[in-house]
């Protein structure tokens, strides 16, 4: 028996034990096993390994109690999810359009109440003028906050993009660039400073 034959046999032994080898090749391997004690010993060991591994294989057993529990939990979990919106049209609630219109109306009423309360505590002037001023101030405040958020988002985007490019060495550089840009913008939007007396004498 040549070592090459043994090598070829070893390669195919697991498939032989597994029963997945074709009949012709399986016959050849069996003939080799009849003449080679070492390969036969390996074959027997493989059979034993297979048996030992499979002995621990769990045998699934399903009783009626488990089936009832699984069915009840899955059924009622879904029911609870549907119950989150009990007014859905499928459950006999009003049509979606009416529900949306009601939502918009309630938001408008709430907004009006807030507006009225802020106007009542506001500065002097006619009611429409104070209301207009209040709305304008709120819009300005909101816009400035949005600008600030957008600047933050842009900064994060630049950082992430640079990091993704693998240029970690450039991250700090990008941050500095962006910081300078923000500083320029801030100075541009600030009102010009009042002229201060110049204490330095020309040519000093």
């Amino acid at each position: 028996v040549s070592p090459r034959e043994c090598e070829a046999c070893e390669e195919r032994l697991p498939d032989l034990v597994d029963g997945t080898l074709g009949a012709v090749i399986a016959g050849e391997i069996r003939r080799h096993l009849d003449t080679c004690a070492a390969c036969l010993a390996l074959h027997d060991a493989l059979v034993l390994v297979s048996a030992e591994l499979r002995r621990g294989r769990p045998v699934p057993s399903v009783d009626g109690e488990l089936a009832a529990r699984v069915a009840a939990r899955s059924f009622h979990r879904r029911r609870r999810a549907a119950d989150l919106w009990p007014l859905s049209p499928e459950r006999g609630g009003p049509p979606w359009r009416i529900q949306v219109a009601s939502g918009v109306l309630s938001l408008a009423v709430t907004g009006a109440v807030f507006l009225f309360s802020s106007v009542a505590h506001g500065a002097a002037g006619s009611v429409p003028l104070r209301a207009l001023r209040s709305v304008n101030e709120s819009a300005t405040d909101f816009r400035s906050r949005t600008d600030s958020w957008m600047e933050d988002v842009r900064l994060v985007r630049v950082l992430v993009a640079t990091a993704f490019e693998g240029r970690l060495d450039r991250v700090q550089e990008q941050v500095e660039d962006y910081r300078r840009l923000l500083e320029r913008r801030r100075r541009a939007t600030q009102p010009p400073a009042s002229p201060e007396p110049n204490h330095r004498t020309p040519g000093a």
Partner: protein
Amino acid sequence: VSDTDERLRDRCLAGDEEAWGELVGRHLPRVMALAQGFTGRRDAAEDVAQEAFTKLFRSLGAYDPARGSFEAWIMTVARNVAIDQYRRHRDERLREMPLLVEPPTGDDAGPALVRRREARDLVRIGLQALPPELREPVVLCDIQGSSYEDAAVALSIPLGTLKSRLNRARLELARRLRDRRIAP
């Protein structure tokens, strides 16, 4: 005559809890067998089955008969849940070693029982010594009974690679037994 799966599904969609119970009872054994193949533990398999049937119930309306049988659809959903669960706990599963079952003492006695125990211990030690990429297919397919196809998907490797790794691992374990002259 019991209802077909499709008929039961229609009844479930109409809110019939009894029909859902019948459908679960009909398919739970196969789902549990599949889940145990991935988890190797009964409690974990029950969790997988629960999650799978909850998903199934939520998406009952999405089943399309033109794309295959209802049973095949159920098994696909269950398989996806089991694979997701397996991948979530993969590191944990690699750390914990599956217990090989003690040989029964009923028929064998004396030297035969000692030999079998020795074989089991050698296999266990051999499993621990295997690298993870060889041990995982053995645990999934041989010990837990998962199919080769399912195991290949769970491990994200081609079927041929899985079989090759399985064969290498089995040979490695068998050589340990042969070298100690332990035979069946």
